């Protein structure tokens, strides 16, 4: 989100405080003077993670601090993970496999590339999942692994940095 505040000592800290107060996590703070900004005001862009439903609360706290919100851009599915599946993907109902992830509501399959080399031969697919949180991603991968076990598919997970 992009915020506008008074260019006075302590203002930035005052603006950041409400974020932790509502359980948010600041990822980046970008702060630069733009020519369009009035001399006595300061523009700050903040990238943050917020628990679901806390945004109105945060905006209220900003208002109390005299910080005005210029723009909010929301990205719901922040986390992305790409996996590869091998097996009889079509015969084991690929749309059901995808649906089991989508049904969680907090993770979605956003991309799928499928290669079917020959009839009756196992096919391979690259599947991209996006989720709201890291925990939801773990849950989605657990669901996919369980489905894969049931359907006798091989799932190849990425090697993540810890």
């Amino acid at each position: 989100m992009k915020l506008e505040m008074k260019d006075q000592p302590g203002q930035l800290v005052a603006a950041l405080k409400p974020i932790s107060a509502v359980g948010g996590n600041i990822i980046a703070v970008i702060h630069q003077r733009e020519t369009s900004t009035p001399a006595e005001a300061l523009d700050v862009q903040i990238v943050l993670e917020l628990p679901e439903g806390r945004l109105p609360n945060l905006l209220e706290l900003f208002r109390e601090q005299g910080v005005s919100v210029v723009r909010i851009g929301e990205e719901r599915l922040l986390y992305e993970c790409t996996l590869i599946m091998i097996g009889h993907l079509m015969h084991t109902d690929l749309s059901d496999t995808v649906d089991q992830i989508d049904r969680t509501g907090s993770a979605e399959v956003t991309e799928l590339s499928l290669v079917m080399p020959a009839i009756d031969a196992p096919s391979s697919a690259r599947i991209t999942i996006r989720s709201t949180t890291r925990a939801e991603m773990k849950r989605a991968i657990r669901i996919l692994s369980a489905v894969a076990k049931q359907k006798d598919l091989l799932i190849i997970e990425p090697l993540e940095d810890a």
Partner: protein
Amino acid sequence: MMRIAILGFGSVGRGIARALLAKDLDITVTGLADSRSGIIDAGGIDLAAALAKKENGGPCGNAGVSPGDVVAKAEYDVLVEVTPTNVETGEPALGHIREALRRGRHVVTSNKGPIALAYPELRALAEANGVLLKYEATVCGAIPLIHAMQEGLAGNTISRLYGVFNGTCNYILTRMAAEGLTYEQALAEARDLGYAEADPTYDVEGIDAGVKLVILANALLDLHTTLDDVERTGITLLSPEALQLAEDQDCTIRLIGEIIPGAGVLRVSPRIIPKIHPLVVEGTLNAVTVEADLAGDLTFIGKGAGSAETASAVIGDLLYIQSRHVKGS
């Protein structure tokens, strides 16, 4: 001068013999046995002659002398146990190692079976008898991973350890990615080059990598695990299409062994990995990353198998013992 007895005169045993002949290491071999024969000679065995006999297809020694005889009767300071691995029972190596430790002899081994199955017991036995048990060659051949973790990284807490532990699988996956070969084609090529056994199960199903994880977990991370605790997926079902799908995103697929002590993770499985990642090594190489709290991340890359390479690890252990325990004693 340090006296050693060598059990096993295959690739590793012969590699050790060649290195001892080529270098002046102040080590004399007083006992030697292969699966069919043995020699006991307190004055020092003629290794060149034993090598020549073996390379002509014969036994290295006399049919009347068994490995058990060498362990029990030869005069040695260190038993070098380099026979093939049995992951189910660890035998006959396990019995021989126990016997040597009970006799108050140091033991150096490249054999994964006894260390994976009975490390706590063997260590206790070594301690009770005031001797050392060394096993650098059991994990990643020439890479001095165990020494690095026990000595160089002593005092660090290891939060994660992961890498490429099996050269056969790495060769197969390298070839599938580079040439678009099927798994079967790449396996056949690995066999032709001597990188894969006639029965490749032990390598391609991730058992070998799993056993190495168990050794590292039990011996270095103080976990109490067995091969059954390792979540294990091999590479036999991998398709060239899957490797291409990874390639499309500048990634590839490697068989990765992973230990996360805090999360109870002990896992061998094919994983998608960026091609620029340090663990993406070519051919039969091994590579391991250790995440340590003080040292940060360290990655070790080197040859995981081979006659001279494995001998390097065994000889490193021998000289460690020599410098601390044998010289001047």
